[in-house]
């Protein structure tokens, strides 16, 4: 068993989700040799390679593809690169993180290699059996891979936390020979720009705390109470589909089956009834708090702490009494 990790770097360091992918590889077989593939151009790439070489004790080598074609992580050149590296390395497994980088790239590379990838893996038992959530986590599907090599996976980083004692030796770094790189379909897409979201507030998908408001907030004006409370907690703001449909907030804040799937340490739901499609988006949260006037609301069935009360009284009181974020 030999594994190739498709890694993402940012400003010279390997992203933590990519290190989780290394952690996941250890579950395939404890003897697996792990190669980490990085692509980019210039000094940031070389810095990232140096970081990669010592970021996890299980990495046995770092492969670096240095070219202007890889300055931005576009799917088209990356997929071709994976195909090229796989032809030379004949890996049994290829793993990447299930984030926007991995989701964009892995299926395209898999199609070029004529294999079916398995996305969003949360559990690995041996080299060919994997568990992944389906129906937004309302069911878990265990699948066995019976196709030819490579078996390609994207893994949820929250399911493969990186152990703290990552003291490691320097893995050797080698350059990928790009002389046979196939330019076909490269250059048909061009990077234009990247707009970072409002950095004042954490990203809904990765936030430690999420504060969500439902239709019971009654108006966009009242929804500001949720935003104020979130600010106090250093939390991301979420909303139910009903609140979005009513126009209180924009679509991108929607938590649920068709919106964002979140799993923060603390999820606080205000005036949320607990529709099935909403529960699907937040049921993996560690601690769930629900505040609702209706004591029969289904949200209370999944809440660790429920408070039956008028949210127009509870939210201001919470805002006042909660300690400032650390």
């Amino acid at each position, binding site marked *: 068993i030999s594994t190739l990790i498709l890694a993402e770097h940012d400003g010279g360091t390997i992203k933590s989700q990519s290190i989780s992918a290394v952690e996941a590889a250890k579950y395939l077989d404890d003897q697996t040799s792990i190669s980490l593939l990085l692509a980019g151009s210039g000094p940031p790439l070389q810095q990232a390679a140096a970081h990669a070489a010592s970021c996890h004790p299980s990495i046995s080598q770092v492969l670096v593809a240095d070219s202007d074609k890889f300055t931005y992580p*576009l799917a088209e050149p990356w997929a071709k690169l994976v195909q090229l590296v796989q032809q030379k390395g004949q890996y049994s497994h290829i793993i990447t993180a299930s984030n926007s980088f991995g989701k964009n790239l892995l299926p395209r590379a898999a199609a070029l290699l004529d294999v*079916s990838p398995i996305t969003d893996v949360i559990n690995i038992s041996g080299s060919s059996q994997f568990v992944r959530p389906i129906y937004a986590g309302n069911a*878990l599907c*265990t699948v066995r891979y019976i196709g030819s090599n490579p078996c390609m996976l994207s893994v949820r980083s929250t399911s493969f936390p990186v152990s703290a004692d990552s003291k490691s030796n320097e893995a050797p770094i080698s350059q990928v020979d790009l002389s046979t790189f196939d330019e076909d379909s490269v250059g048909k897409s061009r990077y234009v720009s990247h707009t970072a*979201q409002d950095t004042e507030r954490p990203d809904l998908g990765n936030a430690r705390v999420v504060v969500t408001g439902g239709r019971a907030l009654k108006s966009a004006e009242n929804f500001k109470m949720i935003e104020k409370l979130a600010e106090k907690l250093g939390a991301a703001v979420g909303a139910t589909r009903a609140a979005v449909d009513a126009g209180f907030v924009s679509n991108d804040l*929607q938590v649920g089956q068709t919106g964002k799937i979140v799993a923060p340490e603390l999820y606080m739901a205000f005036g949320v009834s607990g529709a099935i499609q909403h529960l699907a988006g937040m049921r993996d949260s560690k601690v769930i708090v629900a505040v609702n006037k209706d004591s029969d609301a289904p949200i209370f069935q999944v809440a660790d702490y429920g408070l039956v009360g008028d949210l127009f009284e509870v939210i201001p009181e919470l805002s006042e009494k909660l300690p400032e974020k650390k």
Partner: protein
Amino acid sequence: MKIMVAIKRVVDYAVKIRVKTDKSGVETQNVKMSMNPFCEIALEEALRIKQSGLASEVVAVSMGSTQCVDTLRTGLAMGADRGIHVESTAALYPLTVAKLLKALVEVEKPGLLILGKQAIDDDCNQTGQMVAGLLGWPQGTFASKVLLDKEKQVATVDREVDGGLETLCLNLPAVITTDLRLNQPRYATLPNIMKAKSKVVKKYTPQDLNVEVKSDLEVVEVTEPPKRKAGVVVSSVDELIDKLQNEARVI
């Protein structure tokens, strides 16, 4: 320019799914089925592009059992001009679907292929990227904004990526997969539902398209996720804060 849109028939998003007792899958018999929400967004985008005069025809494609034709009719009622149904009783995995779509693209020659970013049943999030790879077309996945330039033959796509938006410029023909924010799909009106009944749905089989239906995966079992243990009801804000600080230790 012609636009092709792939639409999938799935269990309605508002239905509480049930795992079969023999753990072989999720119950889909006698369950309300609808068009996958992301596919509705894909179709809506195609219709808007056509309405703005940048496309001449919108062709909707669905694959699977005979009942997929109902989903296609919904798409035709929303405004698609024609339907294509690839009939198969066997389960179709994303790689097979991508190969079938590639074969249809070679027949229909659309300038743009739009798909939902994922289906809410198997949550694979693969087909768009795969068909783009097979065709050698550029891809704009998780799109929240699409702008076409007919003269330059490019599409500028805003993509929802972790922590922000990325803008790409794609040469046409291209594949776009839709995210939630792209648009609000329309409802079919009664007159359009009536009109849709007379629109053409062409039928193919995977054999017609020279695609072998196979799978690299075997489902071992489908189970329910672990249940959350029952929580407690607190009586005041003070008690709630106390619990969060001293019991759950999350604030």
